[in-house]
């Protein structure tokens, strides 16, 4: 059932949009530039799933009419930092929940405590890392450095390469995001033109990067509330900094759930792209 699903919505997708046409530079074949448009017509024929698959199975195959083009989507630095941060973030969350267990409230001793559905409830062993408070602290502080460094390397790459333009959500993306939402709600027939990411994706990825930055800053605010008292004050004081630091966990988890679900359901080929860098899927025009 899910097998042919990716084909059907593709038919409605304006792969041939001039605004969204792929640049020849990103397609590793001279013949491929023209094939993007062909790919969309091929995709409308829902019976050729096997055919498209055949093409994907031939390494380095020249994209020909009826086959999806192979495009290079992610720089190695993006791929390495993406997976490194996925693993590091899991460790940060596990050790963070271990630390939380030592005092499961937010607010000064004696209260009042800030609203928290987990108030006074310890997290079970299977989601914790470290075994006890000191173990959790040591994991948390050991993983924090590579987490910050990979994040910084990624942001630096985005800034220097100019890639930030395809990812950063800016004010002009607001109407585009609304148009995209209307399209998803089937209140708009035509897929809004887009670059590498649509406006809603830009919003999601900008949000998660911002969340990463806020997590790191609130982490330092909790780590050194006396030496960095100005930073701690920016978050509303130590207790609130710890509170925001904790809530970031659940925003990360919610994002990851939606992110992974969309990858698997809407565009599984993007998973390969994040591993190898190469993309051969439904949305080649976005590269």
């Amino acid at each position, binding site marked *: 059932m899910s097998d042919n699903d990716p084909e059907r919505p593709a038919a409605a997708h304006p792969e041939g949009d001039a605004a969204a046409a792929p640049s020849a530079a990103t397609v590793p074949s001279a013949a491929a530039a023209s094939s993007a448009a062909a790919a969309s017509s091929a995709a409308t024929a829902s019976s050729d799933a096997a055919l498209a698959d055949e093409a994907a199975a031939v390494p380095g195959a020249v994209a020909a009419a009826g086959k999806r083009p192979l495009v290079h989507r992610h720089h190695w630095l993006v791929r390495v930092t993406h997976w490194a941060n996925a693993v590091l973030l*899991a460790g940060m969350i596990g050790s963070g929940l271990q630390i939380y267990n030592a005092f499961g409230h937010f607010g000064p001793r004696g209260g009042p405590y800030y609203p928290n559905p987990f108030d006074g409830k310890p997290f079970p062993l299977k989601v914790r*890392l470290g*075994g006890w408070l*000191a*173990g959790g602290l040591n994991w948390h502080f050991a993983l924090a450095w590579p987490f910050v460094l990979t994040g910084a390397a990624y942001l630096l790459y985005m800034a220097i390469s100019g890639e930030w333009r395809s990812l950063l959500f800016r004010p002009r993306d607001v109407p585009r995001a609304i148009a995209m939402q209307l399209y998803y709600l089937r209140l708009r027939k035509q897929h809004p033109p887009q670059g590498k990411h649509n406006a809603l994706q830009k919003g999601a990825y900008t949000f998660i990067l911002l969340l990463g930055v806020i997590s790191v800053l609130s982490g330092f605010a909790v780590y050194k509330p006396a030496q960095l008292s100005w930073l701690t004050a920016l978050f509303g004081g130590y207790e609130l900094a710890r509170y925001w630091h904790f809530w970031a966990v659940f925003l990360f988890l919610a994002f990851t759930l939606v992110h992974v679900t969309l990858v698997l359901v809407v565009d599984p080929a993007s998973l390969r792209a994040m591993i190898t860098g190469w993309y051969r899927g439904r949305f080649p025009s976005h590269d």
Partner: protein
Amino acid sequence: MTDRRLSRRDLFRLGLAAGPASLLASCGWDGGPHLGPKLHAISKVNDWVGEKLFLSADRLAPQYPRSQRTAPRDFPAYSISHPLPVVADPAAWAFEVKGLVAQPQRLTLAMIQALPRVTYTVKHHCVEGWTAIATWAGAPLASVIALAQPTAAARFIRFDSFDHGYFNGWDLKSAMHPQTILAYAWNDRPLTPAHGAPLRLYAPIKLGYKLTKFLTAMTFTAEQPGGYWENQGYPWLGGV
């Protein structure tokens, strides 16, 4: 064809599941005999960063109005000994300053109270994550250090207590900080046994477990002295 496509996708899903699964298998893991010591080594790097980059010799921790003090009954007081350790003969109690010093000292409480007095209302940060505000008063540790005149070889201080062998090691930079005191008063009253009577170490720039209660002696050393909790895995510097 369709079967192969499914299996390839399944492989993707398996790969996706493998990451979280391997993490799950490691839950509650302190690193084991191989990674555990490495984590502790990284903790020493963090101690270095904490002392050299974050810790300022004279930046003061924020102070609070007395009206923001935590209700005394809500201020936790931990000790290793149960019941609370109490000095049998307060008149016989004295605080020794020894080790790598030119002038070893044996100070009575009256002598310490005769030194300059520092009073502040500050936030106490426990490693567990709770905070509590109280007013503390005592003699600047720097004034006691000045009396003892540590030698050039002295790089650390070991603080000992009569609380079942509880002790802490400190760096000299934190010890010389103007808000680091030998405290004898808590919330405008003489220190109670729960908070370390007759004398305890206090500073708003360190976590609570670094603030040795029930003091008996301080010893200047060349080697890093460790500490009761620190030797069990807690960060040694414990700076906030």
